[in-house]
């Protein structure tokens, strides 16, 4: 992975606006970006988008021999892939620290918290068990991959159905989907990871964007004072994962506050996932064809058009602008002669020049004096 270069002015600006109580995209500290889950044509495939971060998850299953130490349990395998499609600093087919970190965190959240009933995946003890494989592919990286990836994992695991099997004597028959209804995966609880960026050791910012994430983990002159706190929780407000990267926290209140915020957020996410699965199931029962093409065709033009800008004032809504009548513009604003003038000076260069040399901070070139 190539290094990510962050300029001083970005760092200072983000640090300053965060300390003043604002965020670059107009959210408040505790506000998350828009979550969207859409399912594909097959069981266990989904695209989850969190703002501009997009992740594709696909669950697949195969029959394998169980591990020696756990002869009656199925296997869950999680694989995370980040390609150059996500962001230019990543290289193809190469493991980076980030992929390993994501992989480990998801394993902790879903394997070690024992949310999946692995024993139900057993077909023949010591011989045949189902092995579930979750493939996570990052389509676009705009910060908070952990939260998005964990929602994608949960949504695809909860949606996944494996083929039914019947045993007759020694032989095992795996039925196709048309022969017998597939069986859903049993989830005891629904854990989800949420991320908080910590700025100057006491400000908690939930769902950090890419730039907020890189600023809070980067080192400043006086040493790093920020970090990323990952809290994994299920819908019963039980803690599953706690992970801190970056500077050490010397104030326990930060963690308490994060856990308090996370519990509400996790509950909402799990409800969202569950309701999406119910609606998806209903549609499938009516034999409506569902696939990823729906994401594009339902809002055809909007696929390119960003609804959320990465830099945004608190009250700005792009949709309001369109509805507003042109006549509403106050006339004195239009007729008022401008103090400044945009002049094309060279190729690719436009410059704003003061007409009457009113403001001192704009560079005045000699050509503009006759105005």
């Amino acid at each position: 992975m190539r290094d990510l270069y962050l300029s001083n002015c970005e760092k200072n600006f983000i640090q300053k606006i965060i300390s003043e109580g604002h965020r670059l995209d107009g959210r408040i500290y505790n506000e998350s970006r828009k979550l969207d889950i859409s399912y594909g044509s097959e069981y266990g495939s989904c695209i989850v988008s969190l703002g501009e971060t997009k992740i594709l998850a696909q669950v697949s299953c195969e029959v394998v021999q169980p591990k020696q130490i756990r002869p009656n349990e199925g296997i869950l395998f999680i694989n995370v892939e980040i390609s150059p499609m996500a962001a230019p600093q990543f290289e193809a087919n190469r493991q980076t620290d980030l992929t390993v970190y994501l992989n480990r965190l998801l394993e902790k959240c879903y394997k070690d918290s024992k949310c999946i009933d692995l024993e139900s995946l057993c077909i023949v003890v010591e011989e045949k068990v189902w092995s579930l494989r979750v493939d996570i592919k990052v389509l676009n990286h705009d910060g908070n991959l952990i939260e998005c990836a964990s929602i994608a994992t949960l949504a695809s695991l909860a949606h996944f159905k494996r083929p039914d099997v019947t045993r007759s004597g020694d032989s095992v028959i795996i039925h196709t989907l048309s022969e017998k209804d597939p069986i859903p995966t049993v989830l005891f609880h629904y854990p989800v990871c949420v991320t908080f960026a910590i700025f100057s050791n006491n400000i908690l910012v939930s769902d950090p964007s890419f730039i907020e994430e890189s600023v809070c983990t980067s080192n400043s002159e006086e040493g790093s004072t920020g970090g990323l706190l990952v809290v994994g929780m299920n819908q019963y407000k039980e803690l599953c994962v706690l992970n801190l990267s970056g500077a050490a926290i010397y104030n326990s209140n930060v963690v308490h506050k994060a856990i308090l915020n996370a519990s509400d957020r996790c509950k909402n996410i799990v409800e969202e996932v569950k309701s999406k699965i119910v609606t998806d199931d209903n549609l499938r029962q009516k034999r409506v064809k569902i696939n990823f093409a729906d994401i594009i065709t339902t809002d055809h033009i909007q696929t390119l058009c960003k609804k959320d800008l990465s830099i945004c004032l608190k009250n700005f809504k792009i949709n309001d602008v369109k509805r507003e009548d042109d006549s509403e513009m106050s006339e004195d604003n239009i007729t008022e002669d401008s103090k400044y003038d945009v002049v094309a000076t060279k190729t690719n260069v436009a410059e704003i020049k003061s007409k009457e040399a009113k403001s001192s901070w704009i560079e005045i070139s000699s050509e503009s004096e006759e105005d």
Partner: protein
Amino acid sequence: MKASIGDVVLPGDYCEEITVAGEKAKVIIGPGLRRELDRVYVTKAGVLKKRNPCTYWVDSYQKRYVPSRGENVIGVVVQKAGDIFRVDVGGSITAALSYLSFEGATKKNRPEVQIGDIVYAKMLVASKDMEPELVCVDSHGKKGRLGVLSDGFLFKCSLNLVRKILNPSCPLLESLKNEWPFEMAAGMNGRIWIKANSMRETIALGNAILGAEYQSDEEIKVICSNIASILAGHIS
């Protein structure tokens, strides 16, 4: 597949119109087109465009920058290596910027550039086999508008947006300059540096620029006045 002017094209398509035109006169083929034997092939997905008399190119949506000579770009200084600075301009590799290519710089009088600073520079060498090279002076040795940019804020956007706002017919800067004072530098590599008197004004500026991407000229004017009224506190 055969394509004609104005079509949405995909890599691998070819255009016979260009070949035919090339037999009579000199043809300039721009980005996204490549001549292979006696055909002109499309190498990018986008819209095939033509400007009279004989200039053809593919207009595509792009976020990754490919250095090209003569363009003004904004880069981040990432390394000081001997007598050059390495500058990240968003290309496949970093670009080199000699410390002598600043105004008034000599071997004794080194320019003050720190790692992490951003520079507005011109692409001097951009070849596919070589490291790109930047300069911060024009051919007269004057800095003009190039050099280190201090304070403010740097953000990334698509390459199309930069071209759009730098287009002389785009009303964005025209309408924004009436509202509040600001400074900006737009690099053709999809980076825009902005600076205004306050944080809020800087954010408002970035908001207006990013919001203009998919809007028509009329809508851009409305957005600008809308943002100005939010800034002034008329709409809460």
